[in-house]
């Protein structure tokens, strides 16, 4: 690892993908790409995560409500599944 690599500044989502919009389908993110020639837009896998947050506050806790019951069970010594 080179020690002096400058830290790249990430562009905004809109700058990075000018022909795309981030859409959510049942809470799941996709990158929707607008196509020319009258074609319907295409939805792609999206890893970018929630945008425009303060790094010191962290991201919204998407899974908190899913894992809370499991955490409670684990505290009571119950066997919990990892299959969530």
């Amino acid at each position, binding site marked *: 690892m080179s020690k002096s690599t400058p830290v790249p*500044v990430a562009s905004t989502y809109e700058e990075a993908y000018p022909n795309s919009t981030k859409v959510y389908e049942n*809470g799941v993110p996709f990158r929707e790409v607008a196509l020319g020639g009258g074609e319907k837009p295409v939805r792609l896998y999206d*890893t970018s995560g929630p945008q425009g947050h303060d*790094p010191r506050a*962290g*991201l919204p806790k*998407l*899974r908190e409500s899913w894992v809370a019951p499991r*955490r409670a069970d684990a505290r009571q010594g119950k066997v919990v599944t990892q299959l969530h």
Partner: protein
Amino acid sequence: MAYIASREGLPAEFVRDEVARGRAIIPANINHPELEPMIIGRNFLVKINANIGNSAVSSSIEEEVEKLRWSTLWGADTVMDLSTGKNIHETREWIVRNSPVPIGTVPIYQALEKVGGRPEDLTWEVYRDTLIEQAEQGVDYFTVHAGVLLRYIPMTAKRLTGIVSRITRRTSPTRTSARSARS
């Protein structure tokens, strides 16, 4: 699993079956609630990992988060934090708290840090405590570097896939072993 199924464009039952059969994994630590769940397996989309780590010269929390954001913006499916040095715990905390993708580490880096970089002082207890510390922070997966004894090297001669050490740095028994194995 329904979330993953939707991302992959597959039925939720298929996701469940693949995990149950041991053909896929969902790296998702209960202590990483910021994660957008994803799956790794032969019958799912190919996933790409990105490595990041603090610089020895300077590295602020904002810089580390920026590297993470840059990586995920351009499609990294998982990110490994290979940071070393004094603020390793705090740096990792910020990365995990800001990551929508699974975060991985190489725990031996921090374990070595704890014993002043001297491999001979490394004990199971130090390594174990490092694993627990990182798991409690929300690290989703680990790369475990196992040392190889010289007398086992001949057994590697007829391996079908060869030996890979992706990460070679710092003074560790692993690095020495990996080098011996290659020669």
